[in-house]
């Protein structure tokens, strides 16, 4: 405990870096997954190929991705952009299916009514399908958030600063306290992410809490 207090500012700095590396990809991944999921929900042949392809992306080991990306992107190995891109890929892998499922979950009679009122493809997506898919997408984002927080820590193996440093450093120095601090900090960060997503989701979906009066 005293070790943690002594190193508080370092912990907070690394936590901030960790949050950035895990959080920005959540937003970027969602931005990419929305159109992909929309396409998948509209066309059945695209659905199978898109969901299989994006799903497979998740099986690429993170360490391999961190090492390979610089040669693909032309970035330096220590550039945090590599981590951001890698985490965005994982987020897309997790979210495309969720977005497609969420958009397809709209009640058929609601969709039919929307069509009959002259809502065209994109207008319907924006006004009806997307708002109704928010609870499903938020659930997917929560999984992706936890997954991102956990995977980002691996980046300490290639020397990118974040909370994972405490795990590798503690292991190298045979100092379990430091490892524990790293684990608990990751956990707390994941909880904060989860909370933020839930708050946003609730704000966007007042109708889900409206039950028979």
């Amino acid at each position, binding site marked *: 405990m005293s070790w943690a207090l002594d190193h508080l500012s370092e912990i907070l700095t690394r936590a901030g870096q960790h949050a950035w590396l895990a959080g920005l990809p959540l937003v970027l991944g969602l931005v990419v997954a929305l159109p992909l999921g929309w396409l998948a929900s509209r066309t059945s042949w695209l659905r199978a190929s898109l969901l299989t392809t994006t799903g497979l992306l998740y099986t690429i080991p993170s360490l391999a991705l961190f090492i390979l990306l610089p040669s693909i992107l032309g970035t330096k190995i220590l550039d945090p952009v590599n981590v951001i891109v890698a985490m965005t890929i994982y987020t897309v892998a997790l979210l495309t299916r969720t977005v497609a499922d969420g958009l397809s979950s709209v*009640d058929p009679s*609601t969709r039919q*009514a*929307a*069509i009959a009122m002259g809502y065209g493809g994109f207008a319907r997506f924006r006004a009806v399908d997307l708002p109704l898919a928010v609870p499903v997408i938020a659930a997917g984002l929560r999984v992706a958030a936890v997954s991102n927080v956990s995977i980002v820590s691996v980046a300490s193996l290639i020397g990118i600063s974040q909370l994972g440093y405490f795990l590798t450093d503690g292991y190298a120095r045979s100092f379990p306290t430091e490892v524990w601090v790293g684990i608990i900090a990751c956990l707390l960060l994941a909880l904060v992410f989860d909370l933020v997503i839930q708050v946003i989701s609730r704000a966007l979906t007042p*109708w889900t809490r409206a039950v028979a009066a």
Partner: protein
Amino acid sequence: MIRFEGVTKRYGDADSGSADGGSRAGGGGDQGAVAVDNLTLEAPTGQITVLVGPSGCGKTTTLRMVNRMITPTSGTISVNGRDTASMDVAELRRGMGYVIQHAGLFPHRTVVDNVMTVPRLLGVDKRQARARAMELIERVGLDPAMARRYPAQLSGGQQQRVGVARALAADPPVMLMDEPFSAVDPVVREQLQNEFLRLQSELGKTILFVTHDIDEAVKLGDQVAVLRVGGVLAQLAPPATLLADPVDDFVAGFVGRDRGYRALSFAAAPELSLTDEPTVRLGATAEQVRAVGSPWVLAVGDAGEPVGWVRAAAVDHEVTRDLLHRGGTVASTSGSLRALLDAALSSPSGRGVVAGDDGRLVGTITAAEVVPAIEARRTATTAGEVPEGASTR
């Protein structure tokens, strides 16, 4: 006026043209299964045309071809003289109210926002659209306090009313209704049907209404189109004609039993001489009841409205509501022969209760007295006078 000219819909075409949101007809996936076969039909302006038939008769497909949610394989559909195929699809759809079985309300929008949808899409400003929506919410019989609720907070019947209000919001001349009252219980259904007729008598929309329920078709339709499986029009006629003169075995079978009796719904009650009925007031004493000298005595309320028959022998102290017989129906002087006959048949005394339009008792009539009126009507009909349809609404 909606006009179908030689309209055919065959599924399994290269372009089936079905809008997503689920097409029901032709689900078997047969190559080239015909859902609607060379349909020619006119839905007159300001009237309710009901499409009725068994599953697979293409009635929903027919309806959805009007707003091009399904594209016809051949033939043309015109609305007020304009070929729908040549119109912008969004403009076409926003010019037609559309009501479906489960209302299809937007769960994430409040009732008032649901009703405002089409006016907003058409560019009406928010304040004006809201005012119009609130007016319609009341018009369809909902408490204005419900405007801020979400659809999940309403009963099925209330949701259906919102669905009707939403369809009416942009004041479209044409309404397409696909089994709008099928998913609610019978009591609510009857209320909705009655209010729908009341609204229509005020609004005079051109309505195409799909149902599988022949009773609903006969009750609501100014004219009824009976379709048979495969999408062939079997008969198009006013309900009274449909009941009195089905064109073939299929229509006769579909129209069902008791059609002779049901056809009396469309025959206005003639002027009949009613018998004065001695009555007692609610709260009358046993002596007063027995003084009438009849085993069944009719009780009336304070305004002279008939409230029910009471068995004289059952009254110990005074006439209370829970002593009343519940079976008897009350016919109205401006009602139908069917209501008159039913009042007589359902009355425990055999004397059917007839009330005026103000609800006050006018007199009673027996079945034996109603039957001659029915016979007289038959004679008049065969003599060439066409029975007036839909006169009893």
